[in-house]
């Protein structure tokens, strides 16, 4: 679905954002892209959808270089930026003018999503609140029914009930043919929704791992005091929050926030543990 090899990119030559970045995304998954502010999450997504061009290396989407922006590829991918733009027309008119670009557009699904989100279909788009505009565009993006769907910080600006509606809609929209990428720094909003976690740090992808696999390999626990078995530890009011190798064989629950903190602080023990255990997923550190 997406195949990136040795990607180099930066807005200035002095400060490259990506160096030798490689990443493969498959259909049938919801990927969560995590990274610190300024790590380049949005820029990576823009490379995938043909809005930024690799300075070296390749970025292929649906088997074609993304930068070529072939109509057949653009008809099968949708990119929703963090800040949505809506023209001064009604929702119905926007759909009438735009849905035609997406051959698989599902009008019934759109009606369902808008009803779920409680967005009025007859309203003039710019007269809606920012959150309502965003929900309309999320509904449109999902209804476009493209094989590749890229959502940049979709839950930003959504209120609490809307976040639950968002998870419900996205969970029911995944099919075996589709690939969804959601970038976020609101880990808690999405941790039950994504199945594969990508961490962008230090100009490359430092983790591309199935959450089920991670749960089998790592244990996340709160203990009175961190001991030598801890691959990473963080002090908290309840005690030390630790990541340990999973010796029980029973998969637990992955604490994405703790895992993210461990990876961006470059905890050497964790890095070593993950890199020494073979996994079906690449690149894993």
């Amino acid at each position, binding site marked *: 679905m997406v195949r990136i090899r040795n990607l180099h990119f930066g807005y200035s030559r002095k400060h490259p954002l990506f160096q030798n970045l490689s990443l493969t995304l498959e259909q*049938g998954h919801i990927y969560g892209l995590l990274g610190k502010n300024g790590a380049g999450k949005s820029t990576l997504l823009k490379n995938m959808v043909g809005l930024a061009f690799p300075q070296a290396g390749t970025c292929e989407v649906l088997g074609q270089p993304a930068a070529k922006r072939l109509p057949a590829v653009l008809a099968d991918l949708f990119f929703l930026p963090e800040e949505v733009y809506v023209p001064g027309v009604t929702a119905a008119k926007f759909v009438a003018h735009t849905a035609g670009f997406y051959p698989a557009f599902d009008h019934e699904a759109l009606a369902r999503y808008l009803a779920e989100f409680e967005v009025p279909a007859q309203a003039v788009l710019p007269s809606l609140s920012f959150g309502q505009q965003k929900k309309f565009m999320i509904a449109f993006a999902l209804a476009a029914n493209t094989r590749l769907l890229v959502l940049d910080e979709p839950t930003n600006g959504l209120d609490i009930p809307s976040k639950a509606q968002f998870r419900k809609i996205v*969970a029911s929209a995944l099919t075996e043919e589709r690939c969804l990428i959601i970038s976020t720094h609101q880990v808690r909003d999405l941790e039950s929704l994504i199945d594969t976690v990508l961490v962008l740090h230090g100009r490359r992808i430092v983790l591309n791992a199935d959450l089920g696999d991670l749960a089998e390999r790592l244990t996340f626990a709160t203990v009175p005091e961190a001991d030598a078995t801890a691959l990473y530890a963080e002090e908290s009011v309840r005690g030390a929050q630790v990541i340990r190798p999973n010796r029980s064989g029973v998969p637990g*629950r992955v604490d994405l926030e703790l895992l993210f903190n461990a990876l961006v602080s470059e905890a050497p023990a964790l890095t070593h543990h993950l890199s020494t255990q073979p996994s079906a997923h690449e690149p894993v550190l």
Partner: protein
Amino acid sequence: MDFKENEAIYLQIAGYVSELILRGKWPPDSKIPSVRELAGDLQVNPNTVMRTYELLQSQEVLYNKRGIGFFVAPAAVQQVQAARRERFLTQELPEVFGTMLLLGIELPEVQRRYEEFKHAQLHPISHENQ
């Protein structure tokens, strides 16, 4: 559904499905929600629900009719009870033992309280009148 912090979500969903079967909400041989329907209802990844259904299928709680969907197995209640029993004895009980050891609580005290508890469960009205 609110998820607990330290148990894999697919196992928590397996517990939820088992509960529905034990309480008779999903009777034997009835068709259960599709993977996508349940994923939407619970707001979780469909692959997670698939993993739950595969686990319950391997435990003979569910069966799969190709192209139609998942169904509750005829002996699902017994299978769920057996799995729950196993889980209690191997996972939950050792945790209780650990706490007992830590606090110096001996078995006779636990037994006395268990008998009282059983009595209250079996005779709820006389218990209230006491």
